[in-house]
């Protein structure tokens, strides 16, 4: 009985320090992200594109996937808008280069997340997690963070697994 109490005290101590460390790193290391092209999600969504139109592996793989230059070129082969940013796409295509999209959401290495599971089998809407990205006209300049709390809250609500190894790899 008593041993258990000590264990809990120990646990609290650890948790506290852990939280502190986490916070410290989180605050000091968040860096600005600049995308190679100032991509306008809103325009694309308004134009009638589905999220999976560009994030092509979202339904059947773990990662949603980023559009390859060739995919962008299917629409942007010729000018669609007057936006000078659009020319950048064609420049990449001409150089046979992939557009170096920068990652804005980076899960820690010990987390396993699968889009397929959430989108395909559980039929979650993209906005359940990615809220307003479809409404943004500028790419986010800071990394987007997800907290385990938000994952857990939803998992508990939806009666999904809260087993550690189901998400921690």
């Amino acid at each position, binding site marked *: 009985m*008593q*041993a258990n109490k*000590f*264990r809990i005290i*120990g646990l609290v*101590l*650890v948790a506290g*320090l*852990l939280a502190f*460390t*986490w916070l410290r*790193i989180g605050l000091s*290391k968040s*860096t600005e*992200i600049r995308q190679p092209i100032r991509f306008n999600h809103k325009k694309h969504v308004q134009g009638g594109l589905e999220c999976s139109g560009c994030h092509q*592996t979202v339904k059947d*793989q*773990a*990662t*949603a*996937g*980023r559009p390859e230059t060739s995919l962008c070129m299917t629409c942007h082969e010729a000018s669609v808008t007057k936006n000078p940013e659009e020319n950048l796409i064609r420049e990449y295509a001409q150089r046979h280069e992939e557009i*170096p*999209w*920068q*990652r804005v959401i*980076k899960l*820690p*290495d*010990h987390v396993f997340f699968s*889009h397929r599971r959430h989108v395909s089998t559980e039929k979650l809407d993209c906005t359940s997690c990615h809220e307003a990205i479809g409404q943004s006209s500028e790419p986010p300049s800071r990394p987007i963070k997800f907290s385990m709390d938000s994952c857990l809250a939803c998992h508990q609500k939806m009666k999904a697994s809260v087993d550690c190894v189901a998400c921690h790899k």
Partner: protein
Amino acid sequence: MQRRNFIKLVGGTTAGLALTSCATRQTLPVKDPLSEWRAGAEQWIPSTCLQCPGGCGIQARIVDGNVIKLEGNPLHPINNGRLCQVGQAGLQVLYHPDRLRGPMIQTGKKGSGQWQRLSWTEAIKTVGGRLREMRSRNASHSMMLWDGYGSGLMSALFQRFAEVYGSPNYCSYASGDGMAPAYYAEQGLANPVGYDLENANYILSFGCDLLGQWRSPVWAQRVYGYLRQERPGPKAKLVQVEPRLSLTASRADEWIPVHPGAQGALALAIAYVLIREDLYAADYVSQHTFGFDDWTDAAGRRHMGFKSLILKEYRPDDVAGITGVPVDTIIRIAKEFAQHRPALAIGGPGATMFSNGTYTAMAIHALNALVGGIGAPGGYFSQREFPFKPFSPANRDAIAQKGCSMPRLGDDESHPLISQGRPDLSEALLTETPYPAEVLFLYYANPLFSTLQPEKLTKAFEKIPLVVSFSPFMDESAQHADIILPDHTYLERWQDVPAAPTSGAIVLGMAQPVIKPLYDTLHTGDALMLIGREIGGSVKEAFPWQDFKSLLVESVQGVFEAKRGSVFTESFEAENVRQLAKRGWWIPTHSSFDDFWNDLLKKGGWWEPQDSFDEWGKTFQTPSGKFEFYSQLLAAKLAGLTPTVGAGAPGRRIDAMKPLPAEMGGGADSDKMVLPHYEAPKSSVAKDGSTFYLNVFRPEVLVGGGAAIPPWLQEIIGPHVFMKWDSWVEINPATAQKLEINDGDWIWVESSKGRFRVRAKPYPGTMPNVINVPYGLGHTMPGEWANQRGVNPLLIMEGKSDPISGMAAPGLTPVRIYKA
């Protein structure tokens, strides 16, 4: 009690806290996000493993353009979805940091390590220019191609290159088990044979490391598992005869330790029991063998038969002393062998790497004839050929024809079966017999590491004006090359992979790139064609293909058109193909070649299952059309005649043979010379106080043994003695105790030629008069993981060779050991 727990807990916790903070920093590094980017696009691409000659099918898991994992291809008939340790470690070959980034030229003298990168155009120009110049002065014959891969279209391409360029010096050094001379002498076969292990009831292995270093370890292990627990009916027995308790011996039902080099004598003593006690297959022997009983030739001369020789000379009582195997064991094994047919006797380097290798191999193989196992279920299959479409005939100009008619480099006329052996060419290259080599190409060959005479060969290399290596790694031989034209690794290139003979089926795996080449490397086939084009003239015309891939596609058309076999399929379908083939039928499966080719790449290859046994005409290509105890082919060669049947590898010129030295059994007219018999193996000069023979073995994890040893394999190298990353010497525990050598002591192993320092490991699987040292470590090539790790035991072994096959025989080196 509780208090102590508490302190422990707190102590543990605080220590943990310190760690956690730095650990967290580790897991959340802030790097360039792109380098961490994984689009997650995942796919599986089938290909074929080229880590050893086994030719297993693989499938590579690709995530976002990177190869993440290799697994076995479940449809592949050799490995059925399984893969061995070396195959699994293939990723560490592809991504090895020591891979060469592009063509290089040595600016200093050979071995100086002064390398400079050059472009492929320059490299091809340099090599091709030199070759063209040689042709202009009729010196084309002095080009040598050293092919360490030795099968499939790459070898065919090398042979074509030599042929149209005008050189007789194409040497195939593909790994073998030392049994080839026996298959030739007794069966007249130039190609290796397959074993029907699945149906055998008794497997008597003479130094054949079936589970470790045999042609196809995965297949052998699958069959082992099958024979142990899956096959209906009685379990098969596996008996391993060799000086060391190898992996195979440890997994066998019985290990019979035998003096190094004495396996042949044991085989003959077993034959004695079979004959004496009338346990042999008399019907088979009378129908399908030649030279068993005494006989009279056309000229009226009496000849000794195998039976007389055996009954005269190989009584188990006499042989027990030679082999160290007790008489009752010999008799028991012989009886078991005869009474559990189908029984198979198989041989391997553990028995044949001695100066008496050919006769040992012949003695072992003779047992198969005695139990009627050759061409019968549970025995030996003759291997069929792949129905590749042959290359269009090449137009050879006068230079080529003249060059090809020259004698081969190092064709030492005293070795009658040299075309079945793999002679050590150090001597010939150094002494420039019969002429100097001017250009040497090395393809998956690292002779400076594997030779018994590294000093000689290094000197010989220095004499050769241009040494070109195709190695993707800076191995010992590449270090002494002038130009390196690095090949892709097998995961980046196209290749046909004919699997080494196993169950009699012929299996053609397709290797295709699973990833774009990481570096500025080039397929050696492409490089060779470019060189050919650079030379110009009729050589250029001989390479009409755009690249190796188009050559591959063209050749595989033959497979499609042969209307045989099938693209890899599920096992039921494969059984269907086999059952139909047995009855003489074949069902077309693909409407066009394109359809066939695409399916071939998707499934991983093509195969034709074994469907019949008793094709005697094919099984015995000897003058008598039978299994020859009395080898007429060997006799013909000894007598200086050119045999008319079953000549050796293409392009081999067989000259009149001088009679063998008297030490090998007397003059050429002796019958014994062409019968399987026992010769004492030649030993090196013993240094004072030498009380041990040095036995060299290859650790299982170094199967095939590419130039780069993946660190994953280095750290599991000797599990039975808990050794990682280093060599060791196995000593009989009782002997070690006598010498006061403890586990892990550093000791010197010294022969007349030199010595090395290595850790001692008392190991009960060692004979008292033998010490075992692994081969494959002790590289001296740059790089973090292989360089100077462990020792190369070959360095202190003295070069002997088998006088019949010319094969290098490192077998019997006396050494002494003492504490360092």
